């Protein structure tokens, strides 16, 4: 775009500063992640002393071994996979049909439904009334408490509606109707097969949300056998540390023993962070395009 015109010195300085800035941003995000990966396979003593700062030192897989020996983590993993799969299917089954109906200009009541859904973006019943309702419906301590009360997000309905409106040619739908296709047939056989990008985006958004959520499990589940991974992680990563904060005057040998214990606990934490995040982080680079697309569709005002 600027070819043919020589860059001035000021421009070059600006560009260099800019590259430095972007590189720093990259570094700030990258370093903690790299550190965790290295720390999870390093001798915990070298991590605690600060000797290990980038490359793994005194490689050990103790952390991972302890993580994999922990039955709670396995069960949590299984629960999370189940909740994520069932939850995401429910999310899609509610979101996509509603979004399609709202995308149709000839749908009488479109304004009413849109308005009714949008109000909930700005005003809600709050925590306690929602809790009492879910309890009243008998969903407490079942997996449905994690799935049904968050079955759909208005934001995702809007994004999908925008996609249907802008990407499925109206002529195609008209042609199908002239051929005698019913609305149901039109949606399932013609619109959905052309909507793979948005289905992928929605499945990813909902899927990651379901995988990462902990709060509804915290308030609705009492039976620890049903805990999803995130609640198990909360016990390992958050509650233990907070418990260890206390302590008063202790003699040297107890302190040393506690230090070793703290170091091993830290090793387990690094390993568990990796184990819990790997599925999401692994699929992410391949699907980044879709995620970004989702945000972009959403940003189109409509």
């Amino acid at each position: 775009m600027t070819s043919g015109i020589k860059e001035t010195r000021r421009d070059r300085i600006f560009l260099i500063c800019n590259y430095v800035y972007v590189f720093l941003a990259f570094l700030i995000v990258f370093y903690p992640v790299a550190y965790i990966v290295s720390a999870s396979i390093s001798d915990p003593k070298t991590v605690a002393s600060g000797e290990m700062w980038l490359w793994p030192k005194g490689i050990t897989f103790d952390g991972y071994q302890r993580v994999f020996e922990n039955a709670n983590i396995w069960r949590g993993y299984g629960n999370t996979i189940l909740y994520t799969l069932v939850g995401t299917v429910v999310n899609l089954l509610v979101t996509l049909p509603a979004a399609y109906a709202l995308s149709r200009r000839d749908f009488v009541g479109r304004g009413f439904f849109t308005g009714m859904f949008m109000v909930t973006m700005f005003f809600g019943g709050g925590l306690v009334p929602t809790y009492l309702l879910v309890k009243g419906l008998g969903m407490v301590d079942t997996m449905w408490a994690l799935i049904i009360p968050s079955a759909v997000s208005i934001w995702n309905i809007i994004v999908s509606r925008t996609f249907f409106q802008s990407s499925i040619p109206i002529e195609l739908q008209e042609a199908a109707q002239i051929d005698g296709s019913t609305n149901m047939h039109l949606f399932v056989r013609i619109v959905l097969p052309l909507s793979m990008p948005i289905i992928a985006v929605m499945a990813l958004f909902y899927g990651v949300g379901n995988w990462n959520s902990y709060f509804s499990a915290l308030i609705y589940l009492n039976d620890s056998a049903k805990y999803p991974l995130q609640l198990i992680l909360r016990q390992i990563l958050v509650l233990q540390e907070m418990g260890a904060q206390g302590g008063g005057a202790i003699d040297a040998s107890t302190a040393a023993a506690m230090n070793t214990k703290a170091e091993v606990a830290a090793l387990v934490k690094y390993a568990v962070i990796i184990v819990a995040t790997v599925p999401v982080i692994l699929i992410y680079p391949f699907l980044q395009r879709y995620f970004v697309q989702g945000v972009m569709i959403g940003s189109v005002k409509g």
Partner: protein
Amino acid sequence: MRETNAGLSGGAATAHRHMGNRTLWKRIVRNWELYILIAPAFFYFLIFCYGPMYGIQIAFKNYIPTKGVMGSPWIGFDHFERFFHSYYFWDLIWNTLSISLYELAIGFPIPIILALAFNEVRQGFFKKMAQTVTYAPHFISVVVMAGMIITFLSPSTGMVVRLVEALGFDSPAFLTDPRWFKTMYVFSGVWQSAGWGTIIYLAALAGVDPSLHEAAVIDGASRFQRVRHINIPVLVPTMTILLILNMGSLFGVGFEKILLLQNPLNMEASDVISTFVYRSGLEDAQYSFSTAIGLFNSVVNAALLLLVNGIVRRTSENSLW
């Protein structure tokens, strides 16, 4: 057949409108399947969003579980009065607002600057890598994020603590010192979401007409001047919308993360309205009292949103509605 055809594209449908209720009824019947498609979402919102709104009435009642929402006795504004006159009222308001504003002051401009910077980097491996890496933390769960913060700031083994010590300072007790709570909360949030936040601005920047830049170059504008006078104005509408939305949630700070980072020692800085609602409502089972505080919170939120949107609508054309 022609009518179906016209109905879909919507144009002719409006022409039919004056023909009265019979046509309207026909249009409803013709698309009856669309009502089936929207039914699950309709019932979801009705039950799980409007249902709790109906339950809000317990804020004005003394809720007794055995009597239910309807049967519990009315007591008026008692719960609100108790809350407004409690010693923690101003602390909660202050913590909630100061965390939100702090977050806004730091977290709002950084994605904009980062997006402008990304935009000046040439397409290629470096740009792609920088974007992929800075977007990634968005997908880390709150629990893992809190775990990372706690692990890095742990006084005995934490990486940040070692780093601060290596630079020759005494490391503060980040996790337990109330003075550090807000900074810890805000900067970890920036780390996690600044990269992802650039996407929406980059989309706006991608829409800049290249001929504007060409003309500016011919007129002798430097790169910095072009960013200042072409790219930044392009972002203003997006910024305005996001700012309005942010103002609307000033009283609704990300309470899932706060709840995880809270401990008895930093409580004086970390207790916000929503965590208080959680504690009083679900841990102490003061259902009515907690609902009242929650209602106060959502009313203030909605009012702020309307107010800010109103102000913006008067001064520019970029309001939400």
